[in-house]
C-alpha cells in the first residue's frame, strides 16, 4: 500500500471543505477521482500534495505514519497547464526538478546531457514537439504532455494528474497511456482526476467519487457500470448526453474561401448556414485554435474571401470581427475572455455596452436588469450582479463567457473547446444554450477534441490536419474511427 488516508477533514475559507475522507492508493495503481465541479476533487489533490493543510485525520505513506507537509517530497502534482514555465525550453521544463549538473556544488547545468536525455524521451514516447521548440509557442495539449513527461522523469512514488485528458486528441491520449504504463511499471501510483467515463475504463483500476466534499464511494472499475458511477456522482440518472436540437437550415451565414494564414493555415474553405453546427477537430497542433483566431481577426490572414450574411468583410482586428457579427469563446476562458477583477455584470456587458448608451452615459439600471435576465435564463449560480467573476464555478464562468456574446446578438459563434473541464450537468447546460442559439438563427463553429461530442452535437465535421481541412463529413454518416483516420493522416 502506497498511501492511506483515514478520516481526513479540512475546511477552506472559500466554501470548499472535505469531510472524513478515507482513501488508499496501491503500488502501480491508476486510481480515478471523479466528481462534479466544486465537489472538492482539486482540494483533495492539493491536500495530498501538501499544498493545503489537513485539520483532522491520519495519513500513512508506505505503511508508516506521515504528515501531509512531508508528502510534498513524494508527490508530483501535474495541474492543468499551470506548471509550465513559458520562457524555458522544452527540455528545461521537463527536467525542471531533475537537472543534470556538471558541477553539483555550483549547480551548473550540463546542457548537452540535458538535451540528450530529452531527445531520448521524445523518441521513446514519440512526443509531438522537438527539443528546439519554445514553450510559449506550443499549444495547450503539447504543454499538457510536457507536464506528463515531468511526472515521468521525476520518479516520485505518487503522481497526480488533474484532468489531463481535457483537450487532448486520441493521438495525444495514446502518448499519455504509454507514459502512464511506464509510471505504473516503476511501481508508482497515479491519481487521475477526470470527468470522462469512457476514457477511464481503458486504463483505470479503481474509481473514487467525491460529492459535496465527501467520499461517496470507491468502486472497482471492472465490476461497476457507468450508471452506478454517475449515480454516485450526482444522485441522478443521465438520459441523453447530447441533447441536440435540429432546426431547418437557413441561408449562408459565414462563408470563407481560400483563406491563407502562412505558415500555419492553407486554403481554408468553410460554409456555415443558419441553424447549423459545424464541428472542427484535429490533433493538437493541427491549427484549430489558430483558425478560430484568424476568423476573429487576432492573427493576420493573406488572401481569401470572408463574408458574413452575404456581405464581404475585411477583418483586421477582433473589433472588426465583432462588428461583422462574429463571436469567439476562447479556449482559455479565464485568461482570454473574462476580466477577473470585475463583477459578472461588467463582464457580461463588455461586448454590448453600445446597446445601453444614452447620450454620454451607460444606463446601468436597464443594463443590470438585462444582465439579471441572462443570469436567470442561463442558470448562472447566484442571482446577483455584484460578485467578482473569480468567485464563480467553472461552469458559470463558461456560461458568462458565452452569454456576453448572446447579449451582443452575434450571429456566428466560434466555440473553442467550450466543454473542457466542465462536469456533466454544466455540459448539458452548455449544449442547451447552443440549441437555443441555433433556434434563434445563429450558426456555430464548434471546435473540440472530443470526437463523441462532435458527432453528438454537429451537423457536419471538418477535420484539420497540418493546417488544412482534409475532409468535410456529415456527422450522421461517419464514425470516430474515420475522423481519427483523417486527423492522423492515415486516410488521405
Amino acid at each position, binding site marked *: 500500500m502506497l498511501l492511506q488516508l483515514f478520516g481526513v477533514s479540512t475546511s477552506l475559507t472559500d466554501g470548499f471543505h472535505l469531510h472524513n475522507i478515507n482513501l488508499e492508493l496501491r503500488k502501480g495503481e491508476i486510481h480515478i477521482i471523479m466528481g462534479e465541479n466544486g465537489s472538492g476533487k482539486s482540494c483533495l489533490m492539493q491536500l495530498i500534495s501538501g499544498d493545503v493543510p489537513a485539520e483532522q485525520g491520519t495519513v500513512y505513506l508506505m505503511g508508516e505514519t506521515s504528515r501531509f507537509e512531508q508528502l510534498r517530497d513524494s508527490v508530483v502534482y501535474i495541474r492543468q497547464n499551470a506548471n509550465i514555465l513559458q520562457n524555458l525550453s522544452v527540455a528545461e521544463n521537463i527536467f525542471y526538478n531533475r537537472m543534470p549538473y556538471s558541477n553539483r556544488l555550483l549547480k551548473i547545468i550540463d546542457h548537452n546531457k540535458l538535451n540528450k536525455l530529452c531527445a531520448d524521451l521524445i523518441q521513446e514516447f514519440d512526443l509531438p514537439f522537438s527539443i528546439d521548440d519554445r514553450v510559449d509557442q506550443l499549444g495547450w495539449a503539447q504543454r499538457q504532455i510536457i507536464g506528463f513527461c515531468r511526472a515521468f522523469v521525476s520518479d516520485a512514488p505518487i503522481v497526480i494528474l488533474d484532468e489531463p485528458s481535457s483537450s487532448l486528441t486520441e493521438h495525444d491520449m495514446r502518448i499519455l497511456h504509454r507514459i502512464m504504463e511506464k509510471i505504473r511499471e516503476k511501481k508508482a501510483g497515479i491519481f487521475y482526476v477526470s470527468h470522462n467515463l469512457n476514457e477511464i475504463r481503458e486504463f483505470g483500476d479503481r474509481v473514487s467519487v467525491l460529492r459535496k466534499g465527501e467520499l461517496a464511494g470507491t468502486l472497482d472499475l471492472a465490476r461497476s457500470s457507468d450508471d452506478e458511477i454517475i449515480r454516485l456522482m450526482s444522485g441522478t440518472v443521465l438520459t441523453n448526453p447530447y441533447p441536440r436540437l435540429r432546426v431547418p437550415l437557413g441561408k449562408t451565414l459565414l462563408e470563407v474561401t481560400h483563406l491563407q494564414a502562412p505558415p500555419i493555415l492553407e486554403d481554408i474553405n468553410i460554409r456555415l448556414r443558419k441553424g447549423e453546427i459545424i464541428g472542427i477537430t484535429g490533433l493538437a497542433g493541427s491549427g484549430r485554435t489558430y483558425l478560430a483566431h484568424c476568423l476573429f481577426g487576432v492573427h493576420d490572414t493573406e488572401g481569401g474571401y470572408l463574408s458574413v450574411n452575404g456581405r464581404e468583410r475585411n477583418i483586421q482586428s477582433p473589433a472588426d470581427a465583432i462588428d461583422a457579427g462574429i463571436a469567439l469563446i*476562447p479556449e482559455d476562458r479565464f*485568461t482570454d475572455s473574462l476580466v477577473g477583477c*470585475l463583477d459578472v455584470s461588467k463582464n457580461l456587458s463588455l461586448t454590448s*455596452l453600445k446597446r445601453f448608451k444614452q447620450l*454620454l452615459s451607460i444606463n446601468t439600471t436597464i443594463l*443590470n436588469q438585462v444582465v439579471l435576465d441572462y443570469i436567470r435564463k442561463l442558470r448562472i449560480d447566484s442571482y446577483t450582479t455584484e460578485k467578482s467573476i473569480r468567485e464563480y464555478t467553472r461552469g458559470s464562468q463558461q456560461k458568462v463567457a458565452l452569454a456576453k456574446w448572446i447579449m451582443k446578438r452575434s450571429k456566428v459563434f466560434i466555440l473553442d473547446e467550450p466543454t473542457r473541464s466542465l462536469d456533466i450537468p454544466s455540459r448539458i447546460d452548455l449544449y442547451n444554450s447552443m440549441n437555443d442559439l441555433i433556434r434563434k438563427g445563429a450558426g456555430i463553429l464548434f471546435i473540440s477534441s472530443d470526437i463523441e461530442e462532435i458527432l453528438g452535437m454537429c451537423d457536419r465535421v471538418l477535420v484539420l490536419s497540418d493546417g488544412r481541412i482534409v475532409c468535410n463529413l456529415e456527422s450522421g454518416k461517419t464514425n470516430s474511427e474515420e475522423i481519427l483516420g483523417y486527423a492522423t493522416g492515415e486516410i488521405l
Partner: protein
Amino acid sequence: MDNILHTIKTHMRQYAMVVALVSIMILFQILTEGILLKPLNVTNLVLQNSYILVLAIGMLLCILTGGNIDLSVGSTAAFVGAVSATFIITFNMPVVPAIAMSLVIGAFVGAWQGYWIAYVRIPAFIVTLSGMLVFRGLTMVILKGRTLAPFPVSYQKIASGFIPDFFGNGEGLHITTILIGVLASLFYLFTELRSRRGKQKYDFSVSSMPVFALKVAVLMSVINLFTYWLARYKGIPNVLVLLIVLILAYSFMTNKTIAGRHIYAFGGNEKAAKLSGVKTNRVLFGVYVNMSILAALAGIIFAGRLNAATPKAGNLFELDAIASCFIGGASATGGVGTIVGAIIGGLIMGVLNNGMSIMGISIDWQQTIKGLVLLFAVAFDVYTKTKSK
C-alpha cells in the same frame, strides 16, 4: 443593526480610507493645537494640494490600465508652466488663448508618449522616465535656466483667487459660498433619492431607510460644514471649483461611460478586453494623452500659485500623485481603483504634509513618515484583500 453592519462590511475598504483620513485630521488637529482646521488653513490645504489632486486623477487612469505609471508629469507640468510663461510674459499674449495653447501643447506631449507606449509598446515606465528627463531638459532650455515672473493678475487668479461674493458686503461670512453649499447638498439629496427610486423600480436591493438616511445626512452636513468653514475665510477658491468639476466629470467617465468600462476591462485583463472588441491601443493612447493634459493644467495652476515659472517647478510631483492613488486603494496590477479613492489618498498626503509643517517637523522626517505611510497603507490594503479571499 445587522443591516448597518453588513453595509459597513461590504464597503469596508472604501470606509477604511475615509476613516484613515478623518483620524489623521483629528490627530493633527490635536498635535497642532487646533491650527489644522482653522478656516485659513483649510483654504490653504485646498490651494496647496490642488495640483497634486489634479495629477492624481490622471494618474489613477494610468494605474488602472495595468499598473502603468507616468513619471513625466512633474517635468511636463514644469514644461507647460514655462511655455505659458513665455507666451504671456515674453510675448505678451492674452491669458486665455495662452492657457488654451499651453493645454494643447500638453496634449502633444501626451500624444508623443502615448504613441511609444500604446503603439510601439515600450513599457510606460521607460517612456515616461525618458519624458521626465526630456521635458525637464526642455524646460531649462526654454527658461534658459532662469525664473520667469511675474504673471498678470488674471493668471494668478486661477490658482489663488476666490469666487466673488454676490450677496455679502465683503466683511464677515462669504454668503455666496454658504448658498452654494446649501444648493450642492440639496442637489446631492435629490440625486441620491432618484437613484434609490430607480433601483427600487427594478427590484434591486437598496440599503434600508435608516442606513440611507444616515449616510445622506452625514454627507449633507459635511458639505455644509465645509462650505461654512471656507466662508469664514474668503469663500470658495477658484481652483476648488475646477477641482470639483474634474472630480465629478472623471467619476462619471470612469463609472458611467463606455470609455470608463473599457479602461477597467483593459487593466483587468488586456487580452480578454481585446477579444471583447476593446480597441486596446486606443485606450492606452487616450489615457496618456489625458494624463499629460492634466499635467499641463497642474503646471499652469502651480505657476499661477507661485507667480513664476521656474526650472525646478513640479519636482517630485509624480511621486506624490502616484502615492495618492495607491494610498487611495488602486491596485498595482490594474483594473481596481476609483477617482474618489485617489482624491482621498491625495488628501491624506496633503494633511500629513501640512500638519507636519505646522508642527515644525523638518523636511527629512516628513519624507520618512510619508514613505512609511505609503507602505503601510498599501500593506493594509493587501492584507484586507487576502483576508476577504
